[in-house]
């Protein structure tokens, strides 16, 4: 076969153009006109935050409505072993929650009543800085510190980095501890990933307040949730009017959970 360089180049050029044309028209290469959007009912905010009124919380001594609602909503398994337990919202003693603020002469009502704690959804989250896969990230749109369970490799750097102990590791398959009591509105997790409070991102997307806040409404309304950037929101007004504290402020994480003591 004797083909000139010129004819070879012609054929090669035509083949490339033809191939690209075919590929361009193929439905497998591109979908035109697709997009994504939020549900029309979604709640929106620049920075979500929460105020916990400890006085109201103290008035309902022993109340666990928020914890139960959260753990039920998110399929958090109840494991009795403290080394392997999983928790999103829980109670901590005052001196553990606020180690730099507690002193021996503090009012007994403060020291004797546990403080409700959860992920602080920090402005500067140390967990996000250390995550090697960006499985945990801060959502730029509303400041929620999220977990992408699909990306979590279970290295637990974030657990070490979080100064609030807000993260739990699944040492065991959580489904064994949910035993047929799985809430079908939310996925479970699997053995080997880290989890924590997600500020009910899945409920906000549907237009609902967080499960703990909703549960607390009927129990004295100690939990208030809203947009910290909106000066007219209830959280902003409470923070304007009352004296509030954050957990471990000296660390510079700037928590988005505020406590009114």
């Amino acid at each position, binding site marked *: 076969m004797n083909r000139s360089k010129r004819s070879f180049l012609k054929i090669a050029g035509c083949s490339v153009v033809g191939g690209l044309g075919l590929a361009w028209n193929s439905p497998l290469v591109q*979908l035109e*006109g697709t997009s994504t959007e*939020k*549900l*029309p*009912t979604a709640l929106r905010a620049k920075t979500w935050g929460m105020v916990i009124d400890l006085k109201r919380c103290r008035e309902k001594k022993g109340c666990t409505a928020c914890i139960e609602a959260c753990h039920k909503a998110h399929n958090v398994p109840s494991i009795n072993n403290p080394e392997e337990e999983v928790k999103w919202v829980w109670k901590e003693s005052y001196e553990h929650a606020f180690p730099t603020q507690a002193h021996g002469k503090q009012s007994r009502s403060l020291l004797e009543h546990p403080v409700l704690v959860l992920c602080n959804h920090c402005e500067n989250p140390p967990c996000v800085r250390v995550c090697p896969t960006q499985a945990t990230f801060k959502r730029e749109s509303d400041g929620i510190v999220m977990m992408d369970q699909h990306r979590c490799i279970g290295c637990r750097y974030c657990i070490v980095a979080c100064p609030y102990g807000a993260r739990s590791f699944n040492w065991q398959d959580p489904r064994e501890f949910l035993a047929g009591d799985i809430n*079908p509105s*939310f996925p479970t997790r699997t053995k080997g990933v880290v989890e924590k409070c997600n500020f009910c991102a899945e409920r906000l997307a*549907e237009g609902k307040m967080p499960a703990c806040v909703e549960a607390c409404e009927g129990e004295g309304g100690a939990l208030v949730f809203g947009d910290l950037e909106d000066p007219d929101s209830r959280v902003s007004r409470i923070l304007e009017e009352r004296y509030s504290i954050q957990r471990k402020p000296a660390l510079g994480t700037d928590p988005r959970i505020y406590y009114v003591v």
Partner: protein
Amino acid sequence: MHNAKAVGLGILIFLLLGTFPFWWGWLQESSSEPPEIALPEGGTKCVESREYMRALHMDLLNDWRDTVVRKGERVYVSSSGERFRMSITGTCLECHKSNDEFCNRCHTYVGVSTTCFDCHVETFVPPGKDDRTLVVQETEGTTKGSEGLRPVEVQRSR
């Protein structure tokens, strides 16, 4: 020919090894017939064309996953302009009823293992489902931007 015996034996061994996939498969009574998957029930068409879904459903699902988890957006506007909730359990399984009879039959056949349902619950109910006001808003399109949103509530027959 030198060493005719050894060469012959070598050729025989080579042929035996070379045809291993054929006679091993025959001995195992495996079949090259494609698996029978459960056909979808309920819906009339998928979120995208059949050709696209067959070839690239995994890309679509990965995009959905990242968009929902990382961007917080839950509505997909398809290439034909229809709106769907981005949810493997809430939308896909609405028609393709069973992970075992639909997804896994093909995946097992081609040797792919998926882990979706290790966490996702097959009997998924979207959080808005028990909230009547939300359902009414979505179906009647009274809220801005909700025109044409096809909420799964409408079609559910369970």
